[in-house]
């Protein structure tokens, strides 16, 4: 069950598997700064569109 939970946190886009829990609180500029140097095999703007939904800080945190 734990494995399933972890897999649910990993999103694969192009050649890259992203751990979505690390995207909480991240903004587009930070994302672009990090991944402009990484060949993720996908358009960065399109990747951000997918990953931006994981950036919301959960209530109570």
């Amino acid at each position, binding site marked *: 069950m*734990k*494995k399933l939970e*972890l*897999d649910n*946190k*990993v999103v*694969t886009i192009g*050649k*890259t*598997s*992203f*751990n979505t*829990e*690390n*995207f909480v609180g991240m903004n587009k500029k930070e994302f672009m700064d*990090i*991944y402009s140097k*990484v*060949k*993720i*095999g996908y358009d960065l703007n399109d990747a951000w569109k997918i990953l931006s939904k994981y950036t919301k800080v959960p209530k109570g945190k």
Partner: protein
Amino acid sequence: MSLCKCDTGGGNLGRPNCFGVFDVTKQAILVEYYTPSGAVNGIDISLLSAGGVLDQAFLDSKVKDLNSKTRWYPTPELKNITDERADDITEEFEDTSSVFIQEGARTFNGLIIKGDPVLLGNLQSWRCLTVGVFFIDKSGNLIGKQTRAGYLDPILLQDESFSPALIKGTDTTKQKNSIKFIVSQLENDANLTMIEGAKITANLLGVSGLIDVFAETPTNITTTGFDVVLNTGFGGITSPIVAEGLTASDFSIFNETTQLAVVPTSVTEVSAGNYTFVIPAQTSLDVLTVSNTLISPLTKNYDLTPFTVAIP
């Protein structure tokens, strides 16, 4: 271990009309005979699915077990199997009669086609261990022994009897590994039993063991990431076969300096076996250890040897 039953007499010799028998062995599953807790490393029948079915999830939990001490290690397919007992040991008398003393040793031989030095090295590492073995036969039965209620246990091998070898190819033959071992004299063939293939829904016949993965020296190390090439031990010295298809969920990273886990933000397979890790910012001079995910069973057929990353 006495086979005689002096109080009850001989055993009944009737048989049901229809029953399964062992078929020729196609694979062996090597296990460490004892778990770290000291128990025999057997199959707890109560942990199988309803109706005593061995399903894929159960098989994966054994073959891809994160704990190398309890993991199952299936061999590739075996050929030219011989699994025979030597002649009984008897005492002979001057009148040419003889009496039974004990059974001869059961010796197993098999060949792994396209065996190679890497596999040989891994097989040799079993020689010093207390080894148990399950067999998978051609009908997909899983064969072990039952000497305690509720368990199918591995068959104990005689200490130091495990002997693999590399047989080089010839003009007319393929390169092979051979394996040979002797079943412990503590074992009794009458205790052999099986989970029948009809009760196995997992892809048992042909199951593959894990492949070792080794990292080359990490490069392009910064506080927020690094690159690393991951190879299997197979291939040529200048043309290693790489480990492909790993993702963020296949790794765990531990900061040895701060003693904290580091969750990788992303893992990119830039080219086959060549991975770029992005990690949350670490402090200069921290040392990270990258290893298999900490969650068992593993999802891929790879067993990563931990490697370190020294943050500059």
